[in-house]
């Protein structure tokens, strides 16, 4: 029998093949393309290509009033419209110096953590689907997501494009019944989480498939501006909820899970562990939510004219650091409106993670990054 090395010697150096994965490829989670150069099955070069969904979100926002940009932020990362709203209103609140009433802060935390939960559940479902666990985990994740989206609908009127937050508060107050619904749901989440974890966590095939694949070293992760669960999977303790303590996150007792190896398995586990922390935050927020107004009386819906200046507001969205940078020229329209899209910046290291791996591993490495093309392309 000839060994692989001998076979290589007989066949000579293998040819380099260029493959264009995408833009219409089921594993790319949208219209995303990777120009991959392969030597056999090994990746020797990978360049992400995007912009197929580009609609110049920033230019649109620079043409409308401050208020008019909120529904457009829903459409950035269309799975997490609540956190997108929050990032933007936080930047405007910094720019205009608005205060947020306590009840509104609590509602924001509740909806943002529900968003984080459904985003992570969905991502795990998709990631496992990419690995070949067709359907089952994704369906379980979507079943829970559906219940959360129903809650969003009864609160804000829309399941995905919530358009719920406003500068200085939230658009409508939540009812006591709604809070009871959330409590009932949150009470069932730990059981779902336990089952979801037991489903595949110690599955031998999954471990063999993901451990040691797509490793992202700690130093590179920091230097490349990777944020969110991906950064923490590489062992860097950086969660903006803890660092900036925006909103009222300093009041909650939760831990930041950290990975060790920075591989796909760690990134998968990171989401599972964060979901458990999210449930903890939700329980505390639902226990302590006070009564009161939900809008800053100083806040104006129309004709907001912040002073000349600029502000950068950032939050920990489920995908990483979502920031909004605004420059005001004193008019009702932002002079400069810029989004820091975590999905796009996390893609910077895609090539580094995939080099030397098999082409099949590219799919799960990309899946573990957690991108939404609405945010990458804007």
């Amino acid at each position, binding site marked *: 029998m000839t060994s692989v090395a001998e076979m290589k010697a007989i066949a000579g150096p293998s040819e380099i093949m260029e493959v264009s994965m995408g833009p219409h490829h089921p594993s790319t989670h949208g219209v995303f393309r990777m120009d991959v150069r392969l030597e056999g099955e090994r990746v020797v070069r990978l360049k992400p290509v*995007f*912009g197929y969904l*580009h609609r*110049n979100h*920033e*230019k649109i926002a620079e043409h409308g009033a401050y208020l008019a940009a909120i529904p457009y932020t829903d459409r950035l990362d269309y799975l997490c419209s609540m956190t997108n709203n929050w990032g933007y209103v936080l930047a405007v609140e*910094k*720019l*205009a*110096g608005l205060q947020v009433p306590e009840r509104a802060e609590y509602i924001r935390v509740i909806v943002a953590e529900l968003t984080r939960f459904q985003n992570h559940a969905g991502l795990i479902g998709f990631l496992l689907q990419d690995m070949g666990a067709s359907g089952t985990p994704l369906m379980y994740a979507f079943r829970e997501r559906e219940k959360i989206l129903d809650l969003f609908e009864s609160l804000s009127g829309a399941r995905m494009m919530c358009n719920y937050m406003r500068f200085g508060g939230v658009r409508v107050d939540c009812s006591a019944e709604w809070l009871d619904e959330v409590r009932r749901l949150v009470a069932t989440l730990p059981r779902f989480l336990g089952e979801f974890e037991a489903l595949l966590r110690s599955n031998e095939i999954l471990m063999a498939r993901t451990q040691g694949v797509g490793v992202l070293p700690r130093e*590179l992760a*920091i*230097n*490349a*501006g*990777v944020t969110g669960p991906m950064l923490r999977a590489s062992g*860097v303790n*950086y969660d903006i909820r803890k*660092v900036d303590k925006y909103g009222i996150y300093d009041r909650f007792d939760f831990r930041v899970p950290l990975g060790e190896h920075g591989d796909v398995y760690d990134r998968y586990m990171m989401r599972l562990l964060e979901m458990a922390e999210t449930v903890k935050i939700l329980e505390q927020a639902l226990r302590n939510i006070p009564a009161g107004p939900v809008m800053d009386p100083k806040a104006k819906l129309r004709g907001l004219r*912040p*002073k*000349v*200046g*600029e*502000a*950068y507001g*950032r939050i920990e969205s489920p995908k990483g*650091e979502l*920031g909004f*940078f605004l*420059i*005001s020229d004193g008019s009702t329209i932002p002079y*400069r409106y*810029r989004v*820091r899209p975590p999905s*796009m*910046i996390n*893609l*910077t*290291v895609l090539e580094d993670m995939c080099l030397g791996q098999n082409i099949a591993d590219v799919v799960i490495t990309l899946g573990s990054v957690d991108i939404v093309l609405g945010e990458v*392309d*804007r």
Partner: protein
Amino acid sequence: MSDLLNAEEVKAQIEAGVPGSHVTVIPNGSPSGQHSLLLDNEHAFAVASFLRDHPALRLDYCSLVTGVDWLDTETTEKIRVKKVVDGVETEAEETRKTKVPGYLEAVYHLFSIEKKHGPVILRMRTANRTGQTQLPSLTPVWRSCEFQEREAFDLYGIVFVGHPDLRRILMWDGFADFPMRKDYHPPADGVPVAEVHA
């Protein structure tokens, strides 16, 4: 913001640490109070490396890179000039118009993951909006600038010298214009988009 990250303080540290560099503090009038530092383009790269490696600052994480377009502006001021007409000195009022050339600006928001502080905001400005739009690239210092500088190049036309792979990122390769500039107008319906063909 801690005292360490006070704009004046950082400016003093930079000017001491990078000889020859010139830093201007740009105040910010909004309640956010995030003041920024304008760097001179020759020393920007050295300043960036200095800020990243400084043991107390350790700004190891560049969060956001933004392009901003500032149009040419015209300021008018009224001045009194003395004129000698027919041997008689008279004072007349004249309006003098000064054209202030616009520029493109790149804004960098730096944070420290190690020290958990920030932001320190850096700015760089091009000489004008048309011919000289070069700025030094900070991608070799922070990899996170790679895509965002490409985006600023794509949408604003800022040419980052030293960027490893400066191509269009969101628009397609043949696209000729810079759509985020303030004077850009999209073509009307039915009119083909301007393209360049290599």
